[in-house]
Structure formats: C-alpha cells, structure tokens
C-alpha cells in the first residue's frame, strides 16, 4: 500500500466526486461528509508521500505499469510533494468552510457543486503530480472546466466573467498544447524527463521550433496564471465567483500554474536552456516588475474587497514569476516558498472576505465599518493574512519576501527589489485602508441610532465552520513562517535536483 | 496520406472557416461550422488518422452542430459581426 500513495492522493477526491454525483441526487446530505472524508484521506497520504519523498528522494509511480516513456507516470519530488500537501490542506479547509456558504450561494445545486469542487481538486492534484506534458494539458482542462462552471454558478456578472475566462483559458491551454506539440515534433516524446534527455542528446537548443515551443508554453502558462498583461480574466472571475469557489480557486489555480511553469522551465527545458542559452531572464523579470506594480496599483483603485484581493493575486503572480526568472537559487527558493505561503495567504484573505460578505452582504470596502466589533475573530484572521501580505514577521509573507529580495540582490536586479518593496508598501496601504474602515465606526450621522440597532442585531461572528478554517489558516500562516526552515530545506532539495541554475553554475 | 485531397481540403477549410466567421446569421454560421467540421473529418481521413476522423465525424455532425443550433435557438439568431 505504501507505493500507492500517489494514486491514493489523487483517487480519494476523484472517487468521492463520482460518489457525490451519484449519491448526491439521492440524498444531498452525503455530499459534505464524503468531500471532507476524501480530502482528509488525500491530505494524510500526501503528507505520508511527502515524508517518503523527503526521505528517499523522487517517487515515481507508473500508471498502467508502463515504463517511461511509453506510459504516463507520476513523479513526485519534494517540490510537488509540498504542493500536494498545500493543495489538500487548502481544499480541506475551504470544504469545511463551504458547509454554510455553499448552501447559501448555490442552493439546490449541492451535489453538482461538490462534484465540481472535488474534480477541481483532483485536476489540480493531477497537474502537480504528472510527469507527462500532454497529461498535464488534460488535467489543466479538467481544472479549467470545473472552474468555469464554479464561477458561472453565480448569476449576472459572474457569468460574463466566466465566459471571458473560458475564452482566455482556452487560448492559454491551447497555446500550451501547441507548445507541447512543437516539443513532440522535435523530440518525439511527451514524458518530461525524456524530452529533456532528448533535447540534450540531440543538441536541439538551437532549434527555432524549440524556441517557439518554449515561448508558446510560457505564454500559455502565463495566461493561465494571469501574468500581468494577460491577467484580464482573473479579477472579475475570482471576485464574482461564489465565495467557496473563489476560496479554492484563488489560492490554488494560479499557484499550481506557477508550479507548472517551474516544472516546464527546469524539468523540461532545463535551466541551461532557459537562462544560459536564451538569456531573456532580464526581460521577463522586468515584465514581472511591471506586473507587480500594475497589480498593486490596480488593486489600489478598487473599491470592492474581493476585487482588490483579486488584483493582488496579479501582483503576487508577478512576485513568483520574477523570482523564478531571476535565475538564482535563492530567488527560486523564494518563489517556490512564496507559492506555498501565498496560497495560504490568499486562502485566508478570501475566507475572511467570504465570511464578511456572507454575514454582512456588503462588498465594498467602505461599507465595512465597525467590523472589528461585530466579528472580531474574523478580523483577527484577516489582519494576520494582511500582515503576511505586507510582509511582517513572523508571518510567512515576510520570509518569502526575504528570500525573494535576497535573490533579487544576489542577481543584482534592483528594480525587482524596489518593486517588491513598493508593492509591500502598497499592500500596507491597501490593507490598512480596510482595517481602518473596519476598526472605526461610521462617523455618527443622523441615522446613528438606526445604525447601531441594525449593527447590533444582524451581524455577528460567522458560524464556527467558517471561522474555524479561517483561524486555522491564520495559524498556518504563522507556522509556515516560523518553521520556514523545514520547508526551505525541502525546496532546496528539489531545486538542487534541477541542476545548476544558469549564471551561477 | 493522400496529399492531393489534403491540399484541396485545406483550401476548402479556409473558405469554410472564413464563412462561418463572416456570416451574420448564426444559424448559417452553425451550419457552415458543420461543413468545417466534416471537412476536418475528411482531412483526418486523408491523413490516415481514422480514429480522429471518426471522432470528428461523430462530434462534428452529431454533437457540436446540434449544440450550436440548440443554443442559437434559445438565444438569438442575428449577430452584429
């Protein structure tokens, strides 16, 4: 059974999805326990898998028993082992959170909702495990289709957002597919490791096809992760989605795509191609800088809480892309660490935003006055996440920024360092704007009495199922920060397996 | 592969694609998209990809077109571009 961990991680939510869709029609009470149960199983086995990986290095699981390169395989190294744990944890937390939210936001579609939810998680898990370039595409599509549907379950603008997401998402995925096609044309293989070997053996680095393949894959992945000029679909999609859906979409989808980018750059093309042969890392880092600044500034212009958070994701993606392309180990470690910490930060923020919106029904930042009094614990969670976004120790945001800035300095790219700092400052402004509004009461006006009456009666702390995950996430933020060494050691283990990174090596 | 067919079909394909994007009547567009998809089917067949051609035949004729028509039915038929 021990060898089957990779399969169990993936299959638990997968079978649960089918079970939910079958049993849910009969009795919708089955949905939630099944979801939670499967995610717990998945989480446990992913942790076990991570342990195994940390101990003995890469774990390879041959699907169908066919060896590389004929079949498809799962390759789990510390990097995606970590990611699996993150995905499972986040999915578990937001599924607990969904107990109330789903019932409110998507009434009488419970089975569908949970099926889609679990399939999304399955897709993401699969994306992070697979060692096959084409299989990755299929799983990307599983994840995308479920996201489209989850977003479009709400009405009005969410639907338009979903449509735009479909268009952009398809362009992205198709570009990726085309890139894989180009790779296949030149190498004749689809297995990531095998492609790399062929690339090296046949000396294909000078080929135009490989160059274009690389560009296509990158552009496709960038569209999927909403890298700045290609981010158009994200803010609306995430901010109008049902809150449970956005709680799992926002933290995971972009992050897993960043992982895909890393995987493509380092495992498939190899750092020597990306950094040494192409040598565009500066250009991309500058694009990332623009992304960071633009994301932050656009976030500053928003009045809607969730929209602001969505634009922040755009900025955060800039962090990660920049970190990866800085072409040194510290920055790469920082970027990967940021993938993990940002996943939790985003989750925490969206959980808090979701809780606020479900309880108060308010979307605009300016309507959130006095929330500290009404829902103190929610706001505690929110504040911790906000601090992490700003980069205050000992939350994890600080440490990821630490590594990223370190890497930036190491690479001598001061623009990136400056962008990180400026964006941290903008984050500070953004979040303290919210916190301030929430902390202060509304200026007393004529309707003061009514305010207090309505304020005291209607709104209180959200139920424990919403609050619990929020606080757990907040604690996770602190824990990830405090114990960042353990995580970083794992990440370094993965990074070192990528071989020397460009300029240093 | 039958390259003679291949060339001809490719030419047709372009025509069909342009047409289905140009026509302002969405029902026509759907039907022309049907042509497009079975030209594709022929193309796959000409290239020896029978399974793909089979799938395309089934999907193009049996599913895509009908779905498009169904959607046009429940929305609008005129398009602005």
């Amino acid at each position, binding site marked *: 059974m021990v060898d089957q961990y990779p399969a169990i991680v993936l299959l638990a939510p997968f079978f649960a999805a089918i079970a939910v869709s079958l049993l849910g029609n009969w009795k919708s009470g089955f949905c939630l326990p099944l979801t939670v149960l499967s995610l717990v199983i998945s989480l446990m086995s992913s942790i076990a898998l991570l342990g195994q990986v940390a101990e003995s290095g890469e774990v390879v699981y041959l699907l169908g028993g066919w060896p590389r390169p004929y079949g498809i395989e799962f390759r789990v190294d510390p990097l995606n082992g970590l990611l699996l744990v993150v995905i499972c944890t986040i999915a578990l937390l937001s599924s607990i959170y969904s107990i109330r939210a789903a019932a409110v936001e998507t009434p009488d579609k419970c089975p569908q909702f949970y099926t889609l939810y679990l399939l999304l998680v399955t897709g993401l898990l699969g994306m992070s495990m697979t060692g096959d370039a084409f299989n990755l595409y299929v799983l990307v599509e599983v994840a995308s289709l479920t996201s489209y549907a989850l977003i479009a379950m709400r009405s009005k603008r969410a639907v338009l957002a979903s449509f735009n997401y479909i268009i952009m998402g398809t362009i992205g995925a198709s570009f990726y597919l085309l890139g894989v096609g180009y790779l296949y044309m030149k190498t004749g293989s689809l297995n990531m490791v095998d492609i790399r070997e062929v690339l090296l053996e046949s000396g294909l680095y000078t080929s135009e096809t490989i160059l274009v393949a690389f560009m296509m894959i990158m552009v496709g992945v960038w569209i999927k992760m909403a890298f700045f000029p290609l981010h158009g679909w994200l803010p609306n999609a995430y901010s109008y989605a049902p809150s449970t859906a956005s709680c799992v979409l926002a933290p995971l989808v972009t992050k897993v795509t960043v992982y895909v980018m890393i995987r493509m750059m380092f495992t498939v093309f190899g750092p020597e191609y990306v950094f040494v042969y192409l040598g565009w890392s500066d250009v991309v880092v500058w694009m990332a800088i623009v992304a960071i600044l633009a994301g932050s500034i656009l976030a500053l212009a928003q009045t809607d809480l969730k929209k602001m958070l969505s634009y922040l994701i755009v900025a955060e993606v800039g962090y990660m892309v920049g970190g990866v392309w800085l072409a040194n180990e510290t920055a790469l470690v920082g970027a990967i660490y940021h993938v993990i910490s940002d996943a939790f930060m985003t989750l925490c923020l969206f959980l808090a935003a979701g809780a606020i919106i479900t309880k108060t029904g308010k979307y605009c930042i300016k309507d959130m006055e006095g929330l500290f009094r009404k829902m103190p614990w929610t706001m505690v969670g929110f504040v911790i996440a906000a601090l992490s976004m700003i*980069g205050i*120790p000992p939350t994890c945001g600080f440490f990821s920024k630490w590594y990223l800035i370190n890497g930036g300095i190491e690479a001598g790219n001061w623009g990136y360092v400056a962008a990180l*700092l400026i964006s941290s400052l903008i984050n500070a402004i953004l979040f*303290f704007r919210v916190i301030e509004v929430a902390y202060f009461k509304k200026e007393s006006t004529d309707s003061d009495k009514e305010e207090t009456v309505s304020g005291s009666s209607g709104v209180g702390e959200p139920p424990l199922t919403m609050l619990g995950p929020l606080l757990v996430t907040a604690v996770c933020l602190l824990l990830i920060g405090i114990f960042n060494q353990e995580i970083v050691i794992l990440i370094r283990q993965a990074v070192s397996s990528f071989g020397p990174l460009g300029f240093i090596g | 592969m039958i390259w003679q067919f291949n060339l001809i079909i490719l030419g047709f394909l372009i025509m069909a694609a342009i047409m289905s994007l140009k026509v302002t009547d969405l029902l026509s567009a759907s039907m022309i998209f049907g042509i497009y998809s079975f030209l594709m089917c022929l193309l796959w067949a000409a290239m020896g990809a029978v399974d793909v051609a089979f799938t395309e035949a089934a999907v193009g004729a049996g599913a895509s077109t009908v779905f498009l028509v169904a959607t046009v039915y429940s929305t609008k038929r005129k398009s602005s571009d």
Partner: protein
Amino acid sequence: METVVSSKPLLATLVSLLVVGPIILSRRRPNLRESWTFLAGFIKLGIVLSMLPIILEGGVIEWTLWEILPGLALAFRVDGLGMLFALVASTLWIVTSLYSIGYMRRMKEHSQTRFFAFFAVALSATLGVAFSANLLTMYLFYEMLSLSTYPLVTHHQDREARAGGRTYLTYLLGTSVAFALPAMIYTYMKSGGSMEFVSGGFLAGSVSGGEATVLLILFVFGFAKAGVMPFHSWLPAAMVAPTPVSALLHAVAVVKVGVFCVLRVITGVFGVDFLASLGAATVIVWLASITVLAASLLALTQDNLKRRLAFSTISQLSYIVLGAAMLSESALTGSIMHIAMHAMGKITLFFCAGAIFVATGKKYVSEMDGIGWRMPFTMFAYLLGALSIIGLPPFGGAWSKWFLFLGSVETHNIYLTLVLAISSLLNIAYLLPVAVRAFYVPPGKGNTKIDLHEAPTACVIPLTLTAFGCLALFLFPEILLSLARLMGEPS
C-alpha cells in the same frame, strides 16, 4: 566575558504576552483585569532585576529558540544596553499601569480591555527588542510593536484618531518595510549570512564606505521610531492617543525602541570603530543635529501641550542618535544614559499633561494660566521633569547631557557642542513657560468658572513617583552608568 544560557529573557518578554489571555477573559471584572496587569508587571520587573547582577558583572545572557532563516535564529541576548532599556521599560510599565487605571476610569474610556491587552502586547514587543540578539529578531519585535500600538493610538476611534493612526502606521510600517528590510537583507548578504549583534560590529570589513553610509542612512530612516527628520511627523500625529499611551509608548517604549535600534545598529552591526574608520556616520550626525534644532524650534510654536512634548521628544531622541553617531565613548555613554533619563523626565511631563487634561479638560498651553496652585502636585512634578529634560542638576538629565557635551568635545567638533548648547537653551524656552504660566500668571476670566482640583490619586501618585525618580537618577546613577559603560567599552 561570561555567557550564561538562560531562558529568562524569553520569559521576561513573554510574561506580558501571556497575560493578554487572562485580561481578555476577565473583561467583565475590571479590578481582576487590572490586577493581571500588575501581576505581569511585577513578575516582569522581577525577572529583569534577577538578570541584572550577571550583566553588571559583565556577563551576557543568551537564549536561542530556533533557526528561522539559514544561520539566523530567533535568539535573545541580554547585555548592558538591553538591560538598561528593559529596566527602564519594565519599571515604568508598572507606574504607567497605575496611572492609566486612574486616567482611563476617570475618563470613562470605552474598550478598556482592549487597551490593556494591547498595552501588554506592546510591552512584550519592547522587551523583545531590548533582548533581541540579532537584527531579524529585533525587526520582528519592532514590527510587532508598531502594530500592537496602532489600536492604542487610535483608541478614540474618531476622525482625528483615524487620521493620526493612518500617519502613524504609514510612517512606521512604510519606513520599516521600505528601508530597514532591504538594508537588513543587504547586510545579511554582505556579512555572509550572519546578523548576530557583536560588539564591534559584524559588518566590519565587508562593506565599502559608500555602502556603509547608505546602509546606515537606510537603517536610521528605516527605524523611523527614532524620529529622525524627515520621518518624524508620526510622533505628533500619534498624540491623539490617550495620555497613558503617549506617556509610556511615546516617551518610553516606542520611540526608545527606535533609538535603541539605531544604537544597536551602530554598535552591534557596524561597530563604532569601523564607522569611525569610514567616516560614514557624519551624515547621521548632521541629520540628527538638524533634527535636534528644528524639532526644538517647532516645539516652541506648539500650543497643544502634548504636541509640544512630542516635538520635544523628537528633539531629545535625536540627542541619542547624535550621541551614538558621534562615535566617541563618552557620547555613547551619554546617549545610552539619556534613554533612561529622558524616559523618566518625559514620562513625568506626559503624566502631568494627562493629569491636567483629566482634571480640567485643558489641552492647550495658552489655557493653563494659573492652574499651578490648584493642582500643586502635578505642576510641581512638571517642573521637576522639565528641569530634568533641560539637564539641570540635580536631576537625572544632567548626567546624560554632561556626557554628551563631553563627547562632543572629544570629537573636536565645535559645531556639535554649539548645537547641544543651543538646543538646551531652546529646551528651557519651550518647557519652562508652561510652569511659569501655571504658577505666575493669574487665571484668565474664562477659566475661573471651572472647578479646578487635583487629578485623581491614581494619576497623581505615579507622576510624583517619576518626578522623584528624576531626582533619584541624579543621585544614584551608578547602575545606569555602569550599564552604559559596558557598551562604551571597546571590545
């Protein structure tokens, strides 16, 4: 030098943090709640005192928690400077607690539980800074302090508080992220992964003169709590806070944390000798000098007493920075002592300002005509505190001023001596008129109607205590002096 491994610094830091829980839980019973505060205060003071002998003997206490970044642990280390600061902070916390009970209850402030809870957190952070063994730990507690004092500053939750709080956080958080963090990371990289404070500095030899200057400026600006211009305006803005907050935090904890950090950076990161060899501190010297003078002049123009005191604080803080930047042994000793002396003096002044406000509701200097004889204890204490700040014997301030002057002479820089002299004169000019008005100017017509009487006892006792403290510090400076000397000694 003896190194003792002990968890005492950690305990001292945590004790006030641990008490937050009980405080919140007992929010319905104010007396119990306040007794928790006192309990924690005394325990804290006890722990700090228990460490004192070792430090005085020249020992160091260390405690490492765990490694948080490669080569960097969350570590505590107690030496002379930290000990002195911790001593001041923990002593004054007890006093302030007493004062704030009187103040808050009399003013019938809302959310007292929150107030006391965050107060305790802030104290933890202060001690954390005092005992931190490396830059990172220090930064961590520094940020914790900024954040935990935000609710205190904006306690009133009105428009003014909102504006003040906004400025407060913008400056403190902004500068720390924008300047201190990159400076830290750069330091980290240059030093090859170490940020441990070492007397004599760990950067010596690994950075060039230019880099050192830039880094130093980044650090000084980054720790904006030190109030060096142009990043000073948060301090007057923070005066919207209730007076106990202003008193403890903006005379003792927060601002002193700022200068403490600057001192640490100069002594522990760069090393006095290294800086002297590079001449990198000159910029800081001039910045500080300008701040000293400009803040004093600005203080003169303020009518709001608390604001005037705030500007005075800015000016006094820059003495400390100046003293450190002069890089002479005496000046360093002076500036370290000034932390304590100024704290004692300024807290007295703030207490008085608060007491006046509690008793009469007056905030402005121009309204204070003739109140001296109505509230004699308060105003007398004010006088003592003012004299201490000015630096006249027989008050504590005299010692630190003396050493600073000595230091300025040692550096053979006549301008510095001049700056110190002028600013002392300015001190007189902005502090004494209040006392003079209170005692000698007869009350104006508008004020006679108000029934004036002394502030509540819980307010008067602390301010009397601190006033006498100023006196006592003059008489018994040995402990402070020896602690300060510990740092001044070349390694």
